[in-house]
């Protein structure tokens, strides 16, 4: 088989990453625009548009960026295409952080945020440590450890919930993940952290590429492995924690989006990180629009919908890897 590039053999044409990224940016803009005008009753008025829909779309954008960005970085650093802040228990840990801060009466937004980050970081460090044997963290142990940590923190959440928040429906909604009621101040703090962390990870895209080849190999390519890993873990946890602090536990976006984006722009993190951020934003805004319109006049928490769609996809990936003999 000879193609126009003069290369023979079974051969996949590399995706033109730049073109696809531009396309993705346009898609995100279109999706955001649609989401603004999509509603159960006709066209929204100016008030709803500016004070209800716009903040929601913005929040969807930020949280989508944060979750998918965190997922991409976790997957790269752990060389584990099934890693994601939700699966690894980072999101539940951050939730407990947020609730603890609330219970302690710390209503300062920074305190709230740093509690979320602190819990997120300790939990990912813990999961990594228990999974690590001979310098490797096997993917099955990692996922299993994450599920256990997740169950544990979820239990803590429900203990808190039943004692302190008995009557609050909004907390339940928050736990399931929602883009409603985004506090503008918390939203802007989270937004700054998400975008800054994304920038840091993007600047370390080459290190991430190297790390996917194995930690020893990364070192031999000139990467200070431990430093790079620490910075990337902190940045990814910061994104996840910021997302959780403002929108609760929205699962599977961080898992599914990086996968889809690898098909679109390839595995190079210089393209993959921005692509995942945009892809995550589009997916979350779209899912949220569906969550608030499919069963009018009710609204489903968007986290419930992402889990309903994401869980089967996770199983599909798991099965696919098994078939490829990679487990």
């Amino acid at each position, binding site marked *: 088989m000879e193609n126009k*590039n003069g*290369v*023979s*053999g079974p*051969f*996949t*044409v*590399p995706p033109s990453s730049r073109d696809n990224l531009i396309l993705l940016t346009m898609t995100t803009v279109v999706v955001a625009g649609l989401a603004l005008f999509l509603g159960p009753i006709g066209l929204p008025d100016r008030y709803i548009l500016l004070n209800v829909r716009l903040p929601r779309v913005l929040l969807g954008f930020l949280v989508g960026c944060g979750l998918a960005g965190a997922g991409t970085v976790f997957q*790269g650093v752990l*060389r*584990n*295409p099934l890693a994601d802040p939700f699966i690894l228990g980072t999101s539940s840990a951050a939730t407990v952080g947020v609730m603890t801060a609330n219970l302690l009466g710390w209503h300062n937004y920074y305190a709230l945020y740093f509690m979320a980050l602190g819990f997120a970081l300790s939990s990912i460090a813990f999961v990594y440590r228990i999974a690590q044997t001979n310098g*490797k963290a096997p993917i099955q142990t990692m996922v299993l450890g994450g599920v256990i940590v997740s169950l544990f923190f979820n239990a803590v959440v429900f203990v808190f919930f039943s004692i302190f928040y008995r009557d609050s429906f909004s907390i339940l909604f928050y736990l399931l993940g929602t883009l409603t009621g985004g506090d503008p101040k918390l939203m802007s703090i989270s937004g700054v952290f998400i975008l800054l962390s994304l920038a840091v990870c993007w*600047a370390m895209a*080459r290190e991430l*590429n*190297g790390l*996917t*080849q*194995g*930690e*020893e*190999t990364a*070192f*031999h*390519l*000139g*990467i*200070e*492995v431990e430093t790079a890993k620490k910075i990337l873990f902190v940045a990814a946890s910061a994104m996840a924690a910021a997302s959780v602090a403002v929108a609760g536990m929205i699962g599977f976006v961080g898992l599914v989006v990086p996968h889809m984006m*690898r098909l679109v722009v*390839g*595995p*190079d993190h210089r393209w993959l990180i921005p692509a995942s951020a945009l892809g995550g934003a589009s997916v979350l805004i779209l899912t949220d629009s569906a969550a608030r319109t499919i069963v009018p006049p009710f609204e489903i928490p968007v986290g419930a919908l992402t889990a309903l769609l994401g869980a089967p996809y996770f199983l599909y990936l798991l099965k696919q890897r098994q078939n490829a003999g990679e487990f």
Partner: protein
Amino acid sequence: MLRLEQVSFSYREYAVLQDITLEIPRQSFLALIGPNGSGKTTLLRLISKVLQPRSGKIWLEAQPLSKFSARELAKRMAVIASDQHFEFPFSVIDVVAMGRFPHLNRLQRLSSKDWEVVDQALKVTCVDHLRHRPISQLSSGEKQRVLIARAIAQQPSVLMLDEPNSHLDINHQIAIFNLLRSLNRQHQMTIIVVLHDLTSAAAFSQTIALLHEGKLIKTGSPEEVITTELIRQTYGAEVEVFPSPLGGFPQVAYGPDG
């Protein structure tokens, strides 16, 4: 170029390497051999700074190895480690371009000169025709050649490999060793390679270092190291060494007991 002075290493209480003193001159082709557990891979990991010696000193270009940052080290030595991951579908050219990492600043893009180096590395290793294929889809022999191409793209003066011929058919083994030999001769690269296979060690290397129970038993030319006596002693196997019919190097023969 590389010098080890009384280097020792232990995992907890267990001494893995004792008192290794070894001089590796520029442009040598050194094979590290020895039975399983003799410490040859550990020695390679010490020389490549993955591990730090418990005692003793290692020098690279007359400077202590510990002084080199990962980046400075990667400009001088390329190592093909045994931990290879191909989880993500990077194309061959992406993988080889990673070899330019130590030469680039953060956010700096590969210049046309960098791409020339990458192109050259792809050609020398005969993987040019695979450049857009995902590395995960290649055969073991092709993968090994791509990894060597990435190492060449680093433009190092030392290239280290840990059993580059394991899992390869004999034709691919010969191709890899001939490639290493031409890198050694034409590109003045120092080659250090850990080998199980005594035949290829004898056929392709200039110098052989024989390790046994963490000690350096003998260093010398293949004729000096691969002898019936020494191999029997260290490997504890009934072998016979005789000059290869292809001439110039020793060959190890063995058969069923009795």
